[in-house]
């Protein structure tokens, strides 16, 4: 039976950003790409959504302080 980890209550939504969206995010936050939080390429969610090293994931968390919170993670080599 499949594990279906993306549905688990502890796992937030991970979405792969397009190259243009990545540029927009970097410009808006005024940072370098490498200053983003990271995620490992063998992370179970990265494997599940088939993201490649160098991709940036948009993660939409449920936050106990803000309701919803959006953050990003760069997939490492």
């Amino acid at each position, binding site marked *: 039976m499949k594990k279906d980890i993306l549905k688990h209550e*502890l*796992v937030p939504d991970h979405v792969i950003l397009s190259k243009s969206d990545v540029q927009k995010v970097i410009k808006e936050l005024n940072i370098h790409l490498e200053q983003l939080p*990271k995620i490992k390429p063998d992370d179970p*969610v*990265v494997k599940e959504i088939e993201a490649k090293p160098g991709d940036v994931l948009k993660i939409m968390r449920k*936050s106990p302080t803000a309701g919803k919170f959006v953050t990003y993670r760069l997939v490492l080599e």
Partner: protein
Amino acid sequence: MQDTKRIMGVIEKKGVDFPKSLVNEIVDATKRHDLTGKELGKLLDEIKKAYERAKVEDGEAVGTVAAQSVGEPGTQMTMRTFHYAGVAELNVTLGLPRLIEIVDARKKISTPTMAIYFQEDYRTDEEFIRKIANKIGKITMKDILKDFNINYAEMNVVVELDDDKINDKRLEFDDIIKKIEKAFKRVQINKNILSFEPPTPNIRELRLLADKVRDLQISGVKNIGKVVISKEGEEWVIHTEGSNLGAVLKMKGIDRIRTTTNDIYEIERVLGIEAARNAIIKEAQSTMDEQGLTVDVRHIMLVADMMTADGSVKSIGRHGVSGEKASVLARASFEETGKHLLRASIRGEIDHLSGIIENIIIGQPIPLGTGSVGVIMKPRK
């Protein structure tokens, strides 16, 4: 105004960017007091002012505040562990030792445990739950024997399997025989009576064989020991001693949304780093709550964020976050002073003195708060 869409439209037109939970509160309040558009507008102005004032200022030493906020209740926590009050028979680490386990990012924790929930169709079916519990929980030969004899005269071990116990635990006789044949080379099977022979006929080998027979695992998921079934509200839940999230999530009938473990390293391996971050927050909070201490969640969230920022769960100590600081003086002032200073001098390391601790050591203003800005004089023309 009672229409959520209209209310949210007014909020959007004001151009204020509030977090979702605040927006929800505003919508609820607008409906409760039945505010008009103009009243809502005035309310939003006031809220905007209060929100700006409540926001953390740039340069606030949030790390220090978080450390103190988590550390202070730590001094009030019990250093001894005691039995889990909820489910009897299961011993779970509580209090300060548990908090230390979490913050040290221990890969092997002292009392891993799982809470297994079931899908809607199965969760009130006690029979199904018992079957699963027997499949998951560790069952050894010892649990299904009617008779056990070490025969020193004939140099063998003779056991009799108990059919009642086998049926009680919902096991299949043939599966058991298969496992026994796989594990032992010299075994003779005569219906329920099995006799085992050691490779060499001496007393020591015989005794070892007897232990091996008794402890042979016939059923159960790897790493899981005792299993306890309990009813929580309307549904049946299984609590386990030991944890194997990967294997359990694959089983039929398991609720793949809520089934969880307290082993954070396992959550990182099976569900990913974001899940591990949420698990750190949940575990730390429940540890504090259980001791009767209230720590605002944002401090714990900061610690969890620091531990998981680089893609894997790092401990706070010298093998993790604190050991990875760029400044020599910062690392030396934390732990292993001589080692860091010696190594730095051998390598000719440069300390750029841009962090907090280094500047405190040399007596300069720190790059936080007041020190986060530099003042330059503009020469008069």
